[in-house]
């Protein structure tokens, strides 16, 4: 089954996984989401035609399955403090853990907007098209989430 010409099948899967991870902020949920979306598209079109379609399918599945489930995370205060105190400046794995912790403080729609803008390089207009939100809302989400992260220590 050929992947779109610009990306290999594996690159597309990895890209979809990162987007799913931005939405769920949970490794196994993101894996399940990508697999379900991939199979769904193959079932319907025998291939994954475009990255945008793949992202849209992942997003729709996420809305159907995960957000409605209203997952509640229990994190011990001690570990949270330990993670936060690990700080951004220490670099390497600690940095990743700290960013992970800080991203979990963002809403899924904020993480999504930030990911699409910063990592995927989508413009506000493109994000608005993909997510079905007004461009102004998208810009506001990006701005607000950057501000939140800056306040948490992931500063520019």
């Amino acid at each position, binding site marked *: *089954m050929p992947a779109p010409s610009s990306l290999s*099948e*594996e690159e597309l*899967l*990895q890209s979809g*996984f*990162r987007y799913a*991870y*931005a939405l769920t902020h949970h*490794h196994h949920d*993101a*894996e399940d989401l*990508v*697999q379900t979306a*991939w*199979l769904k598209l*193959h*079932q319907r079109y*025998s291939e994954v035609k475009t990255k945008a379609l793949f992202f849209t399918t992942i997003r729709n599945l996420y809305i159907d399955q995960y957000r409605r489930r209203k997952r509640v995370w229990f994190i011990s205060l001690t570990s949270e403090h330990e993670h936060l105190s690990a700080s*951004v*400046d220490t670099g390497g794995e600690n*940095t*990743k853990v700290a*960013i*992970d912790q800080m*991203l979990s403080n963002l809403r899924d729609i904020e993480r999504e907007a*930030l*990911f699409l803008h*910063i*990592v995927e390089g989508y413009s506000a207009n493109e994000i608005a098209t993909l997510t079905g939100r007004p461009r102004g809302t998208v810009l506001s989400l990006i701005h607000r989430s*950057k501000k939140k*992260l*800056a306040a948490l220590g*992931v*500063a*520019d």
Partner: protein
Amino acid sequence: MKSLEQKLNNYYRSKRLASHRITAIQTSVQEMGGTRRRISYLVPLAAVILLTIGIGLWSHMSTDSITHQVVAEIGQNHRQHGALVVESDQYGVVQAALSELDFPIRPRRGKLVQDFVLVGGKYCTIQGFKAAQLKLSPRKNGTIHTLYVLPMSDDIKSVKPGVYETNGIRVELWTDQTLLYGLAHGQ
């Protein structure tokens, strides 16, 4: 300090789908393709089977339908005691009198000729086809049986031979070469 963009980029780029998971997804797609191929073979096959069953049922029902129509018409004719065109116990005489018929009216069943005495005959129609209606009387008693003889057209070719009953009248149907015979008695 790295910029926010760099940190987020590095963070998300480090998130990778495990290779075993990619393999599992690709395997699932291949299996799904196999299943779809199997289904794509099965769907026309199932359609052909259903169509065959449907045609068979329709044919069976239509055969039953024409048989019942013929039996009902014979039963109805048998109850009507109209005047005979010719009265004779000789098949030859009745055949000559019913000159419009271009088929032999004498039944090939020897036992029928032997056990029954011909009373006479007249024209009638079965399913719109011209037929001979012969009145016969068993030698043992004086009851009247009616024998219908008509050529088998395409429309009534599918009539199923057998013994039927309609409104208390027993009708036996059989075929012999190109002719259909129906013997009715009762009431």
